[in-house]
């Protein structure tokens, strides 16, 4: 068992090493075989574990990672229901995307192809570390690891300097989050002397679990700092701006990292430490607010985007906001549920868009697409499913997860619920806007694009289909009790790790809420249908302009943080360093030189003056000796 678990992250690591070292020599076929094979392998293993249902609350310790004094941090994995779920998502979706990539990236030069898959495997490895880690430090290792991989993959086409800039931005933003995460870790060490989830959170002996005091400074501080980390990783206000830029990477990467898996790490982390968060209602409130705000903001921005991937990116941010709203409302399961469904349909949408871009030979601007539904049948069909799912149309997966979130929000705070509801409407609207502009109407691309347009190869369509199916059925694991006896399978599944959300409203209200959601979404879709059935140039309103430039947030950051920092830096470099400190140091030397030049005049060469000086000093010394000394 122990070694089997160890195999899960080990396989992708091997894949990384093999592909990385052999990227020049191995033929593409082998590379893709290894790249996909290892992921499939770990998927199967995790599936086996899942089916056996053999979880262990206590972590498996492999070796002492850090063992200094009373700070003992083993290198340990913890595979319980929560992590298993994530492992399945990561390896499963990951495998599909690997497979997709083999076709999507086939034009790449051999060594770059190898490099790509190496990175991808490395990412899977780090992500698995993140979710399997038995303590905060191992989690942090994976945490930074995925950050690194996203950096590498965003900057994969390093010839384009802008892409590498976007990559750098992503890494730095993540680093800001990690800043908080690390501080939280140190604080935890200070408070409880251990980082192991088990020692902290298990119900019987967990140092945190047995605490009763709520809202103590330490707890609030730690939870907030952890949330800073989560916000960085999961692109929440104020640290979300890197995610849209991250679309510079290849589309499968966006699908895997920036939609399905990495960005949900924050949710995982908070869910993982729910025991801690339950002690800090204050923090939860803040999380809820920020989540809702992010959801709304991103949704508004998504309304006016014309880059197909940008739209999806912002919708991702918005959906992540949803998840945090759920967390903030204390509905951890709902959040995880939404992570899962979102992983399906957002991956689907991204891959779909990838297929479109592939067909349009690199064109990403939807204004130059249109009328593709006849040409790309499968893509179109799956894309529609994805849109319906994300719009929350019953009975697709999105409906159930989103509903769970809204329900929690409603019970937690009505205002937040309304915000979420508006967001839902906006989501439905911009998604279908995207759909109609892209696939309906008439073709607006260039001629040779027109000829070139074709359905993608099987390697790309199969994942689409699989994901489409998942997007449809994925929601059934969380069908609420209200519908069928013995629903809420997910909740029960996660029970040992994540407490269920205590509903205290009648089923009737629950039905009502669902109805409202569904109706609103449908209305939004209809509006979109009327507006974008046939493409016409959007007239730009000033407000629209603001949205199109995503509220000028980047500009604000730039002039509020980056510029001043550089100003200060260049000032320090040119003035403070040179003519400040260094001048002081050199000043001493200059002083000596100056003194030397002055003292030389004593040496006038005149015997008279010499003797005069001697006599004077004699007099002075006499006076000192006889009249000044006590």
């Amino acid at each position, binding site marked *: 068992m122990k070694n089997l678990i160890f195999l899960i992250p080990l396989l992708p690591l091997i894949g990384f090493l093999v592909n990385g070292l052999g990227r020049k020599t191995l033929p593409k076929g082998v590379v893709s075989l290894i790249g996909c094979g290892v992921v499939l392998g770990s998927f199967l293993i995790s599936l086996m574990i899942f089916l056996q249902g053999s979880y262990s609350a206590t972590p498996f310790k492999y070796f002492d990672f850090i063992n200094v004094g009373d700070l003992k941090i083993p290198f340990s994995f913890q595979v319980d229901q929560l992590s298993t779920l994530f492992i399945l998502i990561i390896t499963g979706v990951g495998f599909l995307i690997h497979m997709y990539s083999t076709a999507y990236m086939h034009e790449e030069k051999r060594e770059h192809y190898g490099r790509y898959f190496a990175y991808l495997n490395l990412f899977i490895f780090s992500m698995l570390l993140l979710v399997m880690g038995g303590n905060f430090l191992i989690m942090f290792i994976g945490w930074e690891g995925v950050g690194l991989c996203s950096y590498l993959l965003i900057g994969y086409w390093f010839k384009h300097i802008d892409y590498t800039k976007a990559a750098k931005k992503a890494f730095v933003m993540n680093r800001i989050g990690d800043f908080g995460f690390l501080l939280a870790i140190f604080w935890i060490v200070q408070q409880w002397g251990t980082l192991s989830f088990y020692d902290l959170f298990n119900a019987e002996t967990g140092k945190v679990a047995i605490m009763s005091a709520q809202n103590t400074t330490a707890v609030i501080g730690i939870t907030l700092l952890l949330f800073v980390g989560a916000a960085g990783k999961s692109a929440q206000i104020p640290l979300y701006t890197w995610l849209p830029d991250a679309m510079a990477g290849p589309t499968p990467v966006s699908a895997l990292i920036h939609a399905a898996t990495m960005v949900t790490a924050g949710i995982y982390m908070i869910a993982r430490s729910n025991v801690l968060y339950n002690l800090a209602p204050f923090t939860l409130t803040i999380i809820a607010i920020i989540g809702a705000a992010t959801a709304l903001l991103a949704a508004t921005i998504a309304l006016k985007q014309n880059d197909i991937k940008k739209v999806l990116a912002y919708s991702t941010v918005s959906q992540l906001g949803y998840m945090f709203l759920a967390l903030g409302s204390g509905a951890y399961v709902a959040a995880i549920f939404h992570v899962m469904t979102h992983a399906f349909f957002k991956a689907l949408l991204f891959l779909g868009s990838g297929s479109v871009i592939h067909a349009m030979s690199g064109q990403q601007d939807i204004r130059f697409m249109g009328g593709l539904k006849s040409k790309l049948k499968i893509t179109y069909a799956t894309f529609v499913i994805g849109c319906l799912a994300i719009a929350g149309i019953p009975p697709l997966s999105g409906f159930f997860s989103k509903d769970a979130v809204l329900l929690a929000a409603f019970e937690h705070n009505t205002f937040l619920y309304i915000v979420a509801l508006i967001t839902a409407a906006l989501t439905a609207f911009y998604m279908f806007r995207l759909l109609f502009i892209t696939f309906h109407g008439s073709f607006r691309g260039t001629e040779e694009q027109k000829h070139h347009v074709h359905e993608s190869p099987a390697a790309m369509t199969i994942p689409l289909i699989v994901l489409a199916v998942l997007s449809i059925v994925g929601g059934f694991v969380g069908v609420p009790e209200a519908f069928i006896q013995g629903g809420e399978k997910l909740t029960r599944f996660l029970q040992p790790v994540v407490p269920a959300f205590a509903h205290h409203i009648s089923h009737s209200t629950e039905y009502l809420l669902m109805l409202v959601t569904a109706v609103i979404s449908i209305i939004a879709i209809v509006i979109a249908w009327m507006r974008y059935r046939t493409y016409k140039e959007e007239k730009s309103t000033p407000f629209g302009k603001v949205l199109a430039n995503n509220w000028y947030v980047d500009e604000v950051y730039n002039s509020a943080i980056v510029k001043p920092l550089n100003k200060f830096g260049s000032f320090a470099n040119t003035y403070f360093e040179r003519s400040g400190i260094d001048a002081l140091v050199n000043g001493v030397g200059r002083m000596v030189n100056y003194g030397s030049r002055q003292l030389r005049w004593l040496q006038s060469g005149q015997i008279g003056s010499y003797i005069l000086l001697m*006599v004077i000093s004699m*007099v002075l010394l*006499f006076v000192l000796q006889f009249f000044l000394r006590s």
Partner: protein
Amino acid sequence: MGITQILFWILAIFTLFSALMVITSKNPVYSVLWLIITFFTISGHYILLNAQFLAVVNIIVYAGAIMVLFLFVLMLMNLAKDNEPQKSKWLKLAGALAGGSLLLVMVAALKGTEQQMTELGTGNIGLIENLGQVLFTQYVVPFEISSILFLSAMVGAVIIGKKE
């Protein structure tokens, strides 16, 4: 106020006066002459302190030999004129002031010695035989050593003086 005391005062006044003349008189030759007079008065003091031998030696060596040597040199350079270049009076003033203050300080310091001061005695240790006794018994080593001094001075004079 015994006779010695009166003589002392007279001699002292003479000494100081002539010494001052040494440093003030424009013409170098005059200064030499004044210096000789000073030496004579000092010899007078020696006699008062009945150090007769030293008195004689002083006159022979200093007034006789050394000063004559000085005189010769001066004549040889025929500097016997009044228009010898003078230091700027500021420098002179400064020198005088420095010296004066030194005098002031030393006197001020030394007059504190009054209480433990003893009277001068008489006695004939100044006579040549007594001095000779000690000189050639206890002080024979320094005496010999001074011969080294003379040798080196001689060699030096030769090195410097001899024309090449």
